[in-house]
């Protein structure tokens, strides 16, 4: 393992720590940033579309394709029998079938694949095919799945201390449960792939995917070919959020299947409604807790059970439920803990990665516990949160990793001060006393999020850097660009490394033939992994150039790369002149770079280890209003401190924080996935599934970067930022609960499942009203 000098030096050429625009920003505002469907189609390009099962569970008895066969423009209809290699494209464990020929396990599961001369004809043909089935009873209820132990993977649990004894011996005990809703990714660019034969008998595939290597491998396996047969390219995605980590692959495989058999280009693009129906979502969860605590709200022990609705197959659910378990503590120390995670099998599409990867669904339990404990003791929830924070001496997680960086108390205290927590709290209490219909709520919640893939081998990355003889630089790495600005950040790192201006670095599409065996761009790891790999490549080339300069100019090893120049004892020359000179003297100007995250390990048998390299932190304070007649609600002010280490690009980091927060707010409020009793997705489009709109942006929205160098040796001591701020949105949910709490004069806090739609809020308000009535009556009887 190579280690690096990673501290941020005074910037040269202004590459690092500056808010450079996203590399594609100008193209994006001009409409000239092309996504896969925007490129001119190859001549003779055909279009494919999946044919979908009409039931939720059962077996296929007969298929009638006659109407589709008769449709002009239909070229061929493929079935599972046309797949030369593997039918199962499960990314980690088997279970995801590309086309089913017998068993149907969820509504709209793909059965056949039609290829036609146009997208419209392919869709029409797919609609005309009749699939006859023997229907069986579907399992859609998670409680049934739990009772019958229907798992896609075996349960796992974390244990530290003696939870049961600690809870029973504690002064106070509480129990609670929570149903947590799922979430549709709603990337604006839907799933799409284009496969075309190349001149050497292989396939060139463009796929909107976070994981080009996996798409490459799966296509090769489906077609029974070596991996080198397939090249996957990905320039940019129109959003992904985890929804293109595994969910892009089936469409790449189907396009490739068509191209393989027909010898011409085949494109597959899902219509939005089918994108909703056919791709996995954030897992809904059903969770329970039992907690014991003392008079100060200090927790003695917890027993938490998290149950993920995994859908019909494992997909990534094992790691997702693991991450839910790893985050059921959030930022709080549980001296005694038992945390169990079940992976429940139900007849829906297989749920998948989504920003936070199960973390949010586990972490919300910790926040519910804090609020419930505070309500039970009649204390302020923020005090309970502060009391239970990890700190020195109280720093071992339920998975036995030691928490070493303790910044949250400082972040909370600063935000308390800067955003007037206590004054506003008092004002709101007064407002609520005098406002019968509109109630305000306020809540501050912290986030501690573990960074690294919990699947250890994924924590590696590669890069490829060329310096051309004119000094311009070509950068390629294994990460994918989905809007987060990864290419911009890695280019800044390379520019900083060579001491040149950012525009010297050219960015190129991610390709499996440039950097092989890559990991998905996921787990917030894009910059940590690929930035470090690129920096490694830069350092290798710099070492060669430095050695060359020392020898060529006969100077000491004090060779400095800065301000587009290389200076040494006897003078300096421009970077481009050095590149030319080095080339003429036969010095290699190209290198790969590689990085593997150090220090991490996890023993699943013992449920102990250090699954995370470090933690990212954040704190958010949200103020809301609710209408207790209708349950309508609004977020009026949000203040955030978020820890990004040394920021490589502050504006891109703030963009991730703001965007993640609003996406989390949507998950917890308006985004309401609904399935019909027969198992068909009811909210199958943006008309019924509502992500936040522009008017939902809080009127006041302050985001401040808490810049403190990462104590771990990450690239320039920065921190991952993609996922952690998503969970800052718990402050909204908690503030809504706080507003509802006021209905009972802060005496009874009803549970609030998510998403907290107007309907759920009204239910909770009614429960609080009822409690108050019952309670007042009892008092009257006294």
């Amino acid at each position, binding site marked *: 393992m190579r280690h690096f000098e990673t501290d941020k030096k005074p910037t040269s050429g202004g590459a690092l720590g500056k808010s450079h625009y996203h590399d594609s920003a100008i193209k994006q*505002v001009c409409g000239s940033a092309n996504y896969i469907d925007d490129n001119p189609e190859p001549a003779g390009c055909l279009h494919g579309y999946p044919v979908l099962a009409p039931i939720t569970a059962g077996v296929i008895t007969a298929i009638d394709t006659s109407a589709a066969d008769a449709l002009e423009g239909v070229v061929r209809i493929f079935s599972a029998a046309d797949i030369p290699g593997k039918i199962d494209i499960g990314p980690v464990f088997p279970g995801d079938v590309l086309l089913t020929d017998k068993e149907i396990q969820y509504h709209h599961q793909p059965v056949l694949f039609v290829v036609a001369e146009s997208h*419209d004809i392919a869709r029409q043909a797919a609609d005309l095919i009749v699939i006859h089935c023997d229907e069986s009873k579907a399992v859609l209820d998670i409680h049934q799945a739990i009772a019958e132990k229907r798992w896609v993977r075996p349960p796992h649990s974390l244990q530290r201390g003696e939870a049961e004894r600690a809870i029973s011996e504690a002064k106070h005990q509480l129990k609670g449960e929570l149903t947590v809703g799922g979430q549709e990714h709603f990337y604006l660019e839907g799933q799409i792939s284009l496969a075309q034969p190349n001149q050497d008998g292989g396939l060139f595939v463009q796929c909107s995917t976070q994981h080009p290597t996996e798409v490459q491998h799966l296509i090769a396996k489906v077609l029974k070919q070596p991996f080198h047969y397939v090249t996957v390219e990905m320039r940019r995605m129109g959003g992904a959020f985890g929804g293109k980590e595994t969910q892009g692959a089936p469409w790449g495989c189907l396009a490739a299947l068509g191209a393989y058999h027909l010898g011409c280009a085949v494109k597959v693009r899902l219509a939005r409604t089918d994108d909703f129906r056919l791709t996995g979502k954030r897992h809904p969860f059903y969770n329970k807790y039992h907690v014991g605590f003392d008079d100060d709200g200090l927790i003695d022990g917890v027993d938490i059970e998290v149950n993920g609705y995994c859908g019909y197959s494992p997909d990534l659910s094992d790691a997702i439920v693991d991450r839910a378990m790893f985050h059921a503590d959030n930022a709080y120390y549980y001296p005694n803990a038992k945390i169990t995670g079940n992976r429940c099998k139900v007849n829906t599409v297989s749920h998948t990665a989504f920003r936070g990867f199960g973390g949010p669904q586990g972490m919300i339990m910790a926040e519910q516990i804090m609020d419930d404990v505070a309500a039970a003791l009649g204390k302020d929830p923020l005090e309970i949160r502060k009391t239970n924070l990890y700190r020195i001496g109280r720093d071992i997680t339920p998975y036995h990793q030691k928490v070493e960086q303790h910044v949250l108390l400082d972040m909370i205290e600063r935000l308390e001060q800067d955003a007037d927590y206590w004054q506003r709290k008092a004002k709101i209490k007064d407002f609520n006393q005098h406002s019968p219909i509109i109630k305000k709520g306020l809540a501050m919640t912290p986030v501690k999020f573990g960074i690294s893939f919990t699947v250890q081998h994924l924590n590696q990355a590669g890069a490829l850097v060329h310096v051309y003889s004119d000094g311009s630089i070509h950068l390629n790495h294994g990460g994918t660009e989905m809007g987060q600005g990864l290419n911009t950040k890695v280019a800044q790192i390379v520019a900083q490394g060579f001491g040149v201006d950012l525009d010297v670095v050219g960015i190129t599409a991610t390709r499996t033939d440039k950097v092989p065996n890559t990991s998905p761009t996921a787990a917030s790891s894009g910059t940590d992994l690929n930035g470090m790999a690129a920096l490694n490549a830069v350092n290798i080339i710099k070492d060669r150039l430095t050695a060359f300069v020392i020898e060529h100019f006969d100077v000491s090893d004090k060779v400095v790369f800065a301000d587009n120049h290389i200076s040494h004892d006897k003078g300096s020359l421009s970077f481009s002149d050095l590149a030319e000179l080095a080339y003429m003297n036969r010095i290699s100007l190209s290198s790969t770079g590689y990085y593997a995250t150090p220090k991490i390990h996890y023993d699943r048998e013992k449920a102990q280890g250090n699954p995370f390299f470090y933690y990212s932190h954040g704190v958010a304070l949200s103020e809301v*209003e609710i209408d207790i007649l209708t349950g309508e609600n609004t977020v009026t002010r949000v203040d955030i401190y978020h820890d990004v280490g040394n920021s490589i690009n502050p504006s891109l980091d703030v963009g991730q924080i703001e965007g993640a927060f609003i996406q989390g707010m949507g998950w917890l409020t308006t985004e309401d996935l609904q399935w019909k009793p027969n198992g068909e997705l009811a909210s199958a489009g*943006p008309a019924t599934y509502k992500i936040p709109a522009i008017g939902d942006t*809080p009127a006041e*929205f302050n985001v401040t970067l808490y810049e403190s160098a990462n104590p771990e040796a990450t690239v320039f001591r920065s921190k991952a930022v993609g996922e952690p701020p998503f969970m800052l949105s718990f402050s909204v949910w908690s503030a809504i609960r706080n507003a509802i709490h006021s209905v009972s004069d802060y005496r009874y806090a009803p549970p609030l499942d998510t998403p907290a739609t107007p309907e759920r809020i009204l239910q909770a308000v009614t429960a609080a009203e009822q409690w108050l009535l019952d309670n007042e009556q009892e008092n009257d009887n006294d």
Partner: protein
Amino acid sequence: MIQFLFNGMPIKVEKCSPNRTTLDWLRTKKGKTGTKEGCATGDCGACTILVGEEVEHSGGKSVWQYKTMNSCLMLLGNVHGKHILTIEAVTTNIHAGLADLHPVQQAMVECHGSQCGFCTPGIIMSLLGLYINHKSYPGKKTVIEALGGNLCRCTGYQPILKAAEKAFEYERIAEPWSAMACRFSQQLIDETNKGKIPHLQDGERAFYIPQSAADVVALKAKHTTATFVAGATDFAIELNQQLRQPQTIISVSQVAEFISFTETASEFQIGAAVPYKEFTESLCQHYPEATELFERLGSMQVRNAGTLGGSLGNASPIGDPAPLLIALNAQMNLQSSQGTRVIDVEDFFIGYRKTSLKENEVISKIIIPKRSESLKLACHKISKRFEDDISTVCLILAVDHRNNVITSARCAFGGMAATPARAHKIEQQLLGGKINATTFIKAGEVVERDFSPLTDVRATADYRLAVSKNLLKRIGIEFSQASIARFSLATTTVPEAPSPISTRIRHASL
């Protein structure tokens, strides 16, 4: 044949499928892929374009006005005579640098307003519409109204809100497109006055865009099964989602008689094909209580294209205008070769998506009476999201009173039954009552006798009933200006108190 101006280029089209959308034409026929398809249902705004229309100036001078629309919902035939502007026209330099950009583009770059960039062309077009139609920054509320139909999944919108303001801070640049359009309109007049109805033809299938009511009636007599559209903001969704292939489409969106709007001393006469945006300002000056209802109806793109005639003809149980029209006792004109039939909007709906429109009839006009001085009107829409969402429950109540005693009540709901419908039991309960909270709370208690709503993707039946009752309670408080110190949902008595209370939440962004 139809003719239109596309960016700087005059276009003539004759052979074309009647169900082709402008988005599809741009992307597949012209290779202009800057305009994106995000949903093909008009919900995301990624396909937003500007549509220019010639409007008569008071001085008789012809000017062009540009409005945002969803190109996925705009049937190509409806583009006849218009000027469509796409993202490719905003900056023509294909190797543009920051200095070459239009102010709205520059502001979006400088505010980091794009991340994945897929929604960005649509956002730029909505910002451009805002820029063209306002000389200076019009304020956050107007920005939200203009961009409520543009979804962004990456940024959380904060940088976009900032960019909307910043665009007006640079040196203002003149709009070059209407001059092109004026030249085009001269050419259009020269070429089209040859008596033929503009149309698209694809074998036996056709799209007609007649310019007069007489032509509409004649066409309908000839093509009895033809589908009528105006803005087609709903019909195009069916075409895109259910892949329908209608034989004949007749668009009334340019029929002179159907696009006239008249305000008289006693009523508003709104042509069936007048887009919402063209009449709601006048209507809401008279009925300010309905302002929010129209602000929340679809998105700006939909309000610029959608019409009352389309909404009523579509007979959706959840369309927002119908309950308002019923509560205000509006009427509609149905025109056929036999003449014009006038019916109450209330009587138009006869079942789920069924109307009393006869096969040879077309909706030509909606007539909304003006209010009596003592009329009290309340309009409430409940949905999961504030912007661009369909009502879970829409409640409109119009009551008149003498000496604080209710003399008439018309209460109409959307989302509670198979059609937009009156709540007769609630009305009876209100009649003769005093205008105070208790009267309305009591009226709310009979809502189950009027309706047995469904449980669906938007809400359960229980919520619909509960919220209907609570909305009547709110209306009672608002109408009686009752001010209350302590107020419990579980009780029906409302004590009086000195200061007015706030009954509505603030809109998040404002």
